[in-house]
C-alpha cells in the first residue's frame, strides 16, 4: 500500500513538471544537409536552423571543403583524399552564449576511380 502511494505520488509529480521550451534567446534547432551520402566532388548545402538575436555562425569540418553561401548555410564538397565519414560542426553564438551541433556526411569514391 505504501509502495503504491509512493508510485502514485511520483507519477503526480511528473505530470506537474513544466514543459521546457528551448531558449528563445539562443537555440540551434537542427542542421540539415541536402544529401548526407555523397560521392567525391558532389556539392551539397548544409543549413543551420537557429533562433536568437545577433547570431554568429562558425562552421568547421574535419575533412572536405566548405564555403559560405550565407551565414547560416555552407556549400560542402570533398576531394578524393577526404573520402569517409566526415563531420560538419556548426557553432552558433550570441551575447547569451554558444551552442553547437554536428552532422555526419558519408563521402564515397566517384565511379570509375
Amino acid at each position: 500500500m505504501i509502495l503504491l502511494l509512493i508510485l502514485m505520488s511520483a507519477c503526480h509529480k511528473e505530470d506537474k513538471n513544466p514543459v521546457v521550451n528551448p531558449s528563445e534567446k539562443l537555440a540551434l534547432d537542427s542542421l540539415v544537409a541536402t544529401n548526407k551520402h555523397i560521392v567525391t566532388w558532389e556539392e551539397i548545402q548544409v543549413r543551420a536552423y537557429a533562433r536568437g538575436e545577433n547570431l554568429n555562425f562558425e562552421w568547421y569540418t574535419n575533412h572536405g571543403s566548405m564555403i559560405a553561401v550565407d551565414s547560416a548555410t555552407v556549400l560542402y564538397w570533398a576531394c578524393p583524399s577526404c573520402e569517409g565519414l566526415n563531420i560538419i560542426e556548426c557553432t552558433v553564438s550570441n551575447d547569451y552564449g554558444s551552442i553547437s551541433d554536428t552532422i555526419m556526411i558519408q563521402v564515397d569514391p566517384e565511379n570509375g576511380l
Partner: protein
Amino acid sequence: MGYKFLLLIMIFALFSLNGPGQCCSAGNPLGSNGINDGLPVKEWQFLTSYKHSLSKNYFHKDHQVEAPVVEKSYYDYQSISVAYGILKWLNASAEIGYFYNKTQELEPGQTMDQIRAGGLGDLALNLRVLPVKTLRRTSQFIASGGIRIPVGAFEKEIDGVTVPVSLQPSSGALKINTSVYYSMPLFRPEFSMNSFAFYEYSNTIEEGYFIYKYADFFQYSIGGQYVYNKRLSILLNMKYEFRGKDHRENEAVVESSGSHLVLINPQVTYNIKRGWSLMVLADLPLYKYVNGKQLTNSYAVQCSLYKRITF
C-alpha cells in the same frame, strides 16, 4: 664548360615543365632549403628564402585526369633561418616561415572565386653533426636530425568557415626528421658530386574531430656541382620522393594519399660580396605516380639570399 653545364640544366628544365609533382599539403615545404653543407666553427649563416609553388593538375596513378571544382592551388612562402657552427663537428639551425597566401582557385560559378589562407608556418630546429673534417670544396659527410614544431596557424577561417586542412599554414603535427649528406670532389676540384637523403616522421594530429597521421616521407637526391669561378656555382640534382599512405581516425587508410615522384632540381648560386650569396633553385617534376587521385604540383621556384659571417 660552365656554359655547357648551364645549357644542360636549361634543356632538362624545358622538358620537365609539364611534369607532375608533389601535392599541396598543410604546413611548410618539405625537404632541404638547398644548402646542405656544414659551417665552420663560430660561423653564422643568415638566410631568407622566398618560394612559389603551383599545383594545377589532378593525377590518377601516372596520368592526368579531369577533376571539377578546384582549378589550381598555389602558395607563396617566405622563410628566415639562422645557422651557427657551434663546434668543429656540430652545427645548429632554426627556421620559421610565413605563408603570404595558400590559395585554391575554384571553377567559375562557385559562390567564391578562391579559398585563401595565410599565416605563420611551423618552426624547424635542426642539429647537424659533421663527423668528417669539413673544408669547403672537399669531402663532407653530414648527419643531421631535426624537429618541426607546429607553432603556426591551424584554424584559419573565412566568413566563419574554417578553411580546408590543406590550406592551413601549419601542418598541425609534430614532425621529426633525419638526413645524411655527402659530397666529394670528382675528377677536378671544381667538380663535385653530392648525395642527400632525408626522412621525416609525423605524429598523429588530434585536434577536435580531426584525427590524422601524415605518412612517412622519404627524399633522396643525387647531383653534381660545378664551381665556375669564385662567384658562380651551378648544381643539378635528381630527386626521388616517396610518401606512404596517410591514416585518419580508427586507423582508416586514406587511399588518395601517398606518391612516388622524380624531380629535377637545378640550382644556381652567385656569391655577391662580403659574404652575401644569392641562390635560385627550382623543383621541376619529371615523373609521378600517385595513389588514388590527387592534385599534383607543376613547379616550385625558390630564391634565397644568405650571408655567412664569423664572430
